[in-house]
């Protein structure tokens, strides 16, 4: 059955190999120059005081060059879309096409149980799905390593400055692509088994996978572990965007990008609180004078003296791999549950 499965998988395997090879060539051609730019900026071995500046310079240089930003996005999109494509074109037809063309009656009346047929098909397709997606991810990780290091050194100021926890980076690096690939494949197979027609099953697969991939970073991932909370003085914010809204300047917003003492942490939410610890956006009356309007530091001092502080919830950087493992485990568990359902359905209901 393994040999048959490989024989029937030839076309998909060739397609996947071609995609991997194309991507590899693209990255191999541009990667060395990217690394040389990083070296030229002298970020490795930099003095702590200058690291952030050098890293930011490097990122700005890359971003201004255009090509690297496009390639970076292209790679990210490819890794994000590959599981969906696998679910659609490998998963959905697996059972549905057999039923549509009637070849199920041929495949399932040989001297081999349907359980074994499905087990081998799921294993071959699932392993290939994971290998392809993770292969793309590893290539991208190699290519983008200088960018990651620059971001780690505090480089900022461009769209390339995405931390490890940002949705695009988190979902395309580490081991999460393995989980997405297996899950998308399992969704496709299950939809095909339920709907029994390839094209509708593909549509449903895409809808379900897209919904899960949107829900995960927005609502599920931030809550996988209880967030940490901290309250810091307004004056200690190392970067702050302050907006005075309204004509009378009586309202304000405090924003922050970095959390002091927590480099690389995942900022979930932040907002000002008053002396009583309640969320506030109303400027104390004493701080609404005209002189404060254009003097940020005076306004901040004034806010601080009236007890205004910044409350932050975040996930520390040290939890990165815990998040990676947990999320991957969730997707693999879902894939396993779907596969189990397919076994039941194939043995009981299908014709």
């Amino acid at each position, binding site marked *: 059955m393994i040999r*048959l499965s490989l*024989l029937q998988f030839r076309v998909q395997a060739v397609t996947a190999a071609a995609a991997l090879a194309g991507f590899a060539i693209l990255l191999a051609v541009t990667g060395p120059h990217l690394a040389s730019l990083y070296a030229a900026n002298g970020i490795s071995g930099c003095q702590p005081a200058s690291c952030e500046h050098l890293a930011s310079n490097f990122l700005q240089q890359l971003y201004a060059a255009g090509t690297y930003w496009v390639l970076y996005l292209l790679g990210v999109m490819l890794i994000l879309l590959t599981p969906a494509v696998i679910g659609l074109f490998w998963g959905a037809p697996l059972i549905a096409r057999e039923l549509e063309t009637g070849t199920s*009656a041929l495949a*399932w*009346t040989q*001297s*081999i*149980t349907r359980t074994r047929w499905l087990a081998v098909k799921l294993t071959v397709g699932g392993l290939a799905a994971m290998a392809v997606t993770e292969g793309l991810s590893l290539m991208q990780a190699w290519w983008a390593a200088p960018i990651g290091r620059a971001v780690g050194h505090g480089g900022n100021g461009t769209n390339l400055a995405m931390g490890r926890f940002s949705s695009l980076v988190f979902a395309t690096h580490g081991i999460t692509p393995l989980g997405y690939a297996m899950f998308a494949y399992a969704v496709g197979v299950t939809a095909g088994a339920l709907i029994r027609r390839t094209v509708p099953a593909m549509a449903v697969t895409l809808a379900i996978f897209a919904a899960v991939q949107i829900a995960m970073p927005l609502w599920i991932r931030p809550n996988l572990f209880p967030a940490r909370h901290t309250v810091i003085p307004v004056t200690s914010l190392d970067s702050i965007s302050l907006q005075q809204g309204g004509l009378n300047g009586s309202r304000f917003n405090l924003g922050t990008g970095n959390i002091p003492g927590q480099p690389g942490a995942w900022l979930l939410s932040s907002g000002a609180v008053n002396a009583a610890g309640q969320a506030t956006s109303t400027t104390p009356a004493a701080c609404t004078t005209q002189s404060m309007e254009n003097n940020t530091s005076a306004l901040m001092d004034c806010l601080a003296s009236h007890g205004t502080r910044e409350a932050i919830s975040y996930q520390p950087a040290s939890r990165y791999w815990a998040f990676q493992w947990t999320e991957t485990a969730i997707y693999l568990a879902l894939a396993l549950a779907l596969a189990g359902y397919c076994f039941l359905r194939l043995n009981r209901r299908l014709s």
Partner: protein
Amino acid sequence: MGAVIQTSGLGKQYRRTWALRDCALAIPEGRVVGLVGPNGAGKTTLLRLAVGMLAPTCGTISVLGERPAGGPGQLARVGFVAQDTPVYARMRVADHLRLGAWLNPAWDDELARHRIGQLGLDPRQRAGSLSGGQRAQLALTLALAKRPELLLLDEPVASLDPLARREFLRLLMEAVAEHGVSVVLSSHLVADLERVCDYLIVLVASRVRVAGEVSALLAAHHRLSGPRRDPGTLPASQEVIEESHTDKQSTLLVRTDEPVHDPSWTVRPVSLEDLVLAYMSRAGDDTPARRQRLGVVS
């Protein structure tokens, strides 16, 4: 002799409609069984239940003494050629033989290659480009080379032209004679089966109407014609299958295990086709009220 297919109270329901009901059969081994009935009678359902592609809604079925598709061992003993003889369109003929060899421990590769050569099929040709007749032959080759004890064929000749039909059945019969397999093949045309089968099952409107050895069935059915007469006055041993009346004359097709002695009847034998058509046309009238009125004892 054991039964190759034994069913009792077997039924299969799709949503609200029954595709097969109250099916009780015991098909003896070593027969070539014709499963006849109009389209939608439940032939495919019965065969798919027999290969385990469907699970029964009620009742039981055992094939070669085991649950259909109960395990690799049971699957190996039954060959199946589904309706429209599906094959993998993108795979070559040779790949289909490899499929058979890989998935069946008792695979007879010599037989398969011999048959493919005999049929003049090019092993490198993709199955999708074969003609209907060639495809049917390829599917039959796969089923035969598996060396099953029982071969189930669902409308194997339906899509073939008359010449290919005759050729297919000839090759099937050769194989049956050579390997001694039991065969069940379905068709909605009796003519297809008349020459090859020695056991008949007539399935109409999801129920088995009659089943038995062809010779016994032919011996037990007679066409009676004579002066007009109410069928209700016939002896209880004579079951009226079909009746037609003119003002003066009645023509009946009856089933009875006893000789017809009534001198008012002219008794003639029936052909297999007449017999099947009689059972098929009776189906629509098979409501209890009608049966009572007709005095049909069944």
